[in-house]
């Protein structure tokens, strides 16, 4: 905790120093985000956020940028009276400091046509909205399940070479692997299939160990290459990524009996599989309709899962079974989308998504459709989204029992320049084992207020 306070103090001092420099631009936003479960009237999210961005371009040769996020959470973590007496007050006011990005851009570095970005950065590839299967450099930030598409910064060297007017070669090297963050609380199981225990077994304690890749170039480093150009009136690109999947997978499960009644402690070892990803995307229009597509063919390295459990044949003995957690057969995720603005200003956006963020392996990919209809009123001061959300289908042969739906209407009021208020809802339904079906009882309404400065 002392280290964290030191970090916060150092950050404030750095900001103070930079404020004194005229060329530094300081922007950011304040946001409060409050969500209420309609089923039980329980608050599920209460966050106040100060986002600070510092940047400058003292010359045409370089530019720097940094973004930090100070967050306060409204749910106290008080379990005993001593928690109320801490001078840090961090049990009453839970908070977190996130160092999202800090990089420098060097323009014309060694060659007039070469730009290099060094430092912690968010790399966003792909032409699709929010879901980008070709974007594997920056890990997913899935803390907020409804805000998927967010990414974490990762330390990288990112070089862009601009060859002639319409060809860009982008090469990225990431020395150290950064894993994705996952949803917390009762959304934590949304991306994991329910654990099914054999009949008669009862789980007492569940524990897991996450194994990160060794910090060596061969084990932990990632690299990617993308070539982008124009073909007729379309933007197109081809890419390759070599590294690790940022979602962990179970490679070892041990069932330890604690009594003779079938009660078990279950421990799991999680690791990050190595993958190679060949990607491609395009964006353009057919007639006046905007269209885009993005696909990623993933070549995973096979992951075996070892299960150690009590033998049913020889009591007192443990059996070891080896199965396949992830096959090395390639699988294709892709997105096809389009948007259109009608003459009356009504905007419609839709996407077909084959394979969601957490799905991997041939035979495990589901189909999703996202949609959004919005219209602005009062000279763009009011934005209404009457229809928005997504549908998941995980078995076309029995759709009635294998579907998920999230309906997300929203109203955004731009009270003034830089001030916006959002009121919306997430209404869920579904059956079967799919993303939305697994959280179907967690309908929420939310209110967000954001002030940009």
């Amino acid at each position, binding site marked *: 905790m002392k280290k964290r306070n030191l970090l916060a103090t150092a950050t404030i001092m750095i900001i103070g120093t930079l404020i004194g420099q005229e060329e530094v631009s300081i922007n950011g936003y304040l946001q409060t985000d409050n969500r209420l479960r309609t089923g039980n009237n329980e608050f599920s999210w209460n966050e106040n956020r100060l986002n600070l961005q510092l940047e400058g371009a003292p010359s045409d040769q370089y530019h720097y940028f940094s973004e930090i996020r100070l967050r306060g959470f409204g749910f106290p973590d008080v379990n005993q009276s001593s928690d109320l007496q801490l001078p840090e007050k961090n049990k009453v006011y839970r908070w977190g400091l996130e160092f999202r990005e800090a990089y420098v851009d060097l323009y014309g570095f060694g060659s007039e046509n070469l730009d290099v970005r060094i430092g912690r950065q968010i790399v966003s590839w792909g032409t699709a909205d929010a879901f980008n299967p070709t974007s594997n450099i920056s890990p997913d930030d899935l803390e907020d399940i409804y805000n998927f598409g967010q990414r974490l910064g990762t330390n990288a060297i990112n070089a862009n070479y601009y060859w002639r007017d319409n060809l*860009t070669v982008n090469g990225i090297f990431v020395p150290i692997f950064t894993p994705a963050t996952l949803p917390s609380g009762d959304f934590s199981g949304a991306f994991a299939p329910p654990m099914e225990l054999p009949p008669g077994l009862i789980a007492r304690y569940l524990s897991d160990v996450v194994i990160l890749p060794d910090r060596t170039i061969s084990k932990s480093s990632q690299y990617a290459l993308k070539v982008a150009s124009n073909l007729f009136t379309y933007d197109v690109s081809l890419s390759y990524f070599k590294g690790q999947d940022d979602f962990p997978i179970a490679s070892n499960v041990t069932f330890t009996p604690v009594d003779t009644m079938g009660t078990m402690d279950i421990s799991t070892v999680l690791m990050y599989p190595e993958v190679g990803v060949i990607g491609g995307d395009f*964006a353009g*229009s057919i007639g006046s*309709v905007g269209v885009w597509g993005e696909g990623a063919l993933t070549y995973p390295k096979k992951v075996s899962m070892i299960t150690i459990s009590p033998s049913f044949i020889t009591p007192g003995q443990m059996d070891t079974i080896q199965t396949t957690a992830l096959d090395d057969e390639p699988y294709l995720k892709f997105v096809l989308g389009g*948007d259109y603005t009608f003459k009356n*200003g009504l905007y419609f956006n839709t996407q077909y998504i084959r394979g969601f963020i957490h799905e991997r392996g041939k035979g495990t990919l589901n189909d999703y459709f996202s949609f959004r209809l919005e219209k602005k009123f009062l000279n763009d001061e009011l934005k209404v989204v009457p229809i928005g959300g997504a549908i998941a289908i995980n078995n076309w042969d029995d759709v009635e029992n294998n579907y998920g739906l999230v309906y997300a209407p929203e109203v955004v009021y731009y009270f003034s*320049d*830089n001030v916006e208020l959002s009121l919306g809802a997430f209404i869920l339904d579904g059956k079967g084992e799919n993303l939305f079906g697994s959280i179907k009882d967690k309908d929420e309404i939310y209110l967000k207020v954001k002030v940009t400065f």
Partner: protein
Amino acid sequence: MNKIIIRKKYLMIQLNQLLKKGSRMKRLINPTVFFLVFSIINMQLFAQNISAMEILKTVDAVVNAPKDIHQFSRMILINKDGNEKVRESEMYQKGDDMRLVRFLSPADQKGIGFLSLPNDLMYLYLPAFRKIRMIASHVKNTNFAGTDFSYDDMSSFKYSEEYDPQLLETRDSVYVLELTPKPDVEKDYSKLVIQVRKDNFYPVKIDHYDKGGNLWKVMIREKLVKKGDYWIALEMEMKDLKKLHSTKMVVDKIELDTGLTDKTFTKRNLKKIK
């Protein structure tokens, strides 16, 4: 006689534009050649009357006369109650078909960039998404960042390429032309009625009509000044009569012919923060 003088001005402007197109051309045309060409032009003046298309081409030439433009401006959005919102922007333009606009304020729009290239290519950079998006044609007739200008209005001024003109009337100080979109050009406007100053061929007022033939938007260019050889409007206002909303663009600083290269008008430059 009046028509002859106007015709002379038109041809002089056209010739002037020709000479400014490049230093190589300037080197090729010596004073003797210039005198001969000018004499031929003068003789032609008596034989022809200026046509609507010639006026329109001259309008394009005058508006796009500078080889390049770099300007800082304010866009003041005014609603029906008179309340104002201000957007500050920086704009680069080269020729008549390359333009880059970048918002400097307000904070929630800072860094948003817009790039317009030949062949109707348009790109939008949204810093929050860290992505450059190609703008499909359905977006081109929507409002640009809450202003009363559409993306298409912001992209370029090449009336003669996109519209067929008809001379409606000639007043004391202005020509009045009616422009209808060419058959293969898709516009949200059924026609424009444009008033062109006779003395400098600058378009000072443009009435935009919707598909139903109703007057929809009115653009007025004011505070015309001459910077070197070029006429520049320091204020331009677009009024949307349906929304009772207007956007006034005020030029705070302008630099002409600074030698901008094509590299300014690239996606690489679009995402650079200045």
